[in-house]
């Protein structure tokens, strides 16, 4: 069985994993809305900037993005200013995971907005609403229900992808149990980790299912 110290280490690893996934889904969703609005905007600059953003962050591995932020930025800083600075690995993880999630969520949000019937925007305009008013009061609220399932998907993916942070000196859940397994030669620690991952994803699944039903009250 686990001793007190091991238990605390596993708990700490779980918290790291959870923190990164939750921060990434929240900031990813906020940036994602902005990028999605850029993608559907008629403004050429906004449109190509958001296209480029999605192209880059979806097209390169998350691990690479993590390396760029954690390893490359301090070196670039050193080369250009001659000064060194230490970078907090947790902050790097927050930034990399949020930026990456934003790219995926932007496409999900864009598709959800475009799936709303065009008559809704017309009706809003005919009632004198501006584009912004129509988006915030009429169109975007209708996407919430359609966004719940893919958002739950993304959160579960993020939760498992956090194991990548073991490469930048962080102890997430998986790295914590791996260290215990190699120190003791016992594989049973992996079972504990699997149980915790499953426990967390079960909660996400149940909560998101309930939310989806709740948001769908207005449908027949």
């Amino acid at each position: 069985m686990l001793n007190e110290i091991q238990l605390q280490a596993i708990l700490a690893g779980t918290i790291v994993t959870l923190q990164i996934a939750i921060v990434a889904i929240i900031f990813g969703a906020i940036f994602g809305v902005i990028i999605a609005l850029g993608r559907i905007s008629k403004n050429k600059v906004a449109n190509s900037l958001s296209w480029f953003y999605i192209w880059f962050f979806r097209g390169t591995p998350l691990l690479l993005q993590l390396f760029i932020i954690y390893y490359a930025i301090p070196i670039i800083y050193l080369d250009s200013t001659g000064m060194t600075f230490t970078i907090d690995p947790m902050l790097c993880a927050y930034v990399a995971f949020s930026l990456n999630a934003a790219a995926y969520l932007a496409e999900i949000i864009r598709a959800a907005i475009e799936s709303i019937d065009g008559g809704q925007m017309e009706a809003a305009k005919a009632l004198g609403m501006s584009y912004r008013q129509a988006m915030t009061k009429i169109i975007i609220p209708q996407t919430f229900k359609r966004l719940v399932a893919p958002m739950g998907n993304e959160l579960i993916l993020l939760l498992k992808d956090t194991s990548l942070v073991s490469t930048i000196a962080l102890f997430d859940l998986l790295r914590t149990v791996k260290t215990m397994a190699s120190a003791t030669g016992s594989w049973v620690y992996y079972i504990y980790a699997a149980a915790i991952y499953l426990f967390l994803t079960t909660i996400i699944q149940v909560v998101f299912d309930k939310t989806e039903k709740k948001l769908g009250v207005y449908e027949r």
Partner: protein
Amino acid sequence: MSMVKLVDVRKSFGDNEVLKGINLEIESGEVVCIIGASGSGKSTMLRCLNHLERITDGEVYIQGELTDKREKNKDLMKIDPVKVQALCAELGMVFQNFNLFPHLTVIQNITVAPTIVKKVDKAVIEKTALDLLEMVGLSDKKDEYPSRLSGGQQQRVAIARALAMEPMIMMFDEPTSALDPELVGEVLATMRKLAEEGMTMIIVTHEIGFAREVADRVIFMDEGVICEQGTPEEVLLNPKEERTKIFLNKIL
């Protein structure tokens, strides 16, 4: 002064010219019915009035104020969009497919635009909304979501929603075309009531009987032009133009 005016309006979608030089003036209190085959440009003309479609050539006036002037799709006036938006809001619109906001209840559908566009006080607009619901005969449905209403009920809510913005003109784009036959009557009855109250109305419709009964003027459109117009007796009973006769023979 006319309520709305179109001067030499043309509208193309790509190579397809849908409106080929429309001149139209609607006076205050007038009820105008627009008839014609599908593809004749009836709906497009209506949608050009409140800028759901932008014209390619010509001029659009609302209450004597120029809202759009274009030549070969080039904007000649660059009129302040806020002002245009306010003028277009004077034209209430009822759509063929209702376009109620599904995530809002009946009463919220009616109050949302006055609240955020005109910043009307919540208590005031709720009172107005209840009065409007009573007028369209749906007081008991105020807290239902649109998906729980029949088509005819949804369309009556849509009429109340447009009226809540206190428009100068009500425009109807085939308001009964998506309805089951037994539900058409209740919507027409509501529209008749509005006409009797003196509302200025522009109605694109296939309900010839209704047009004959309520219209002050009937306009027959064909292939992007106004082919014939006049009183219901003139256009519907004694049409002069051959194309009008052919159309009426087909649908009556």
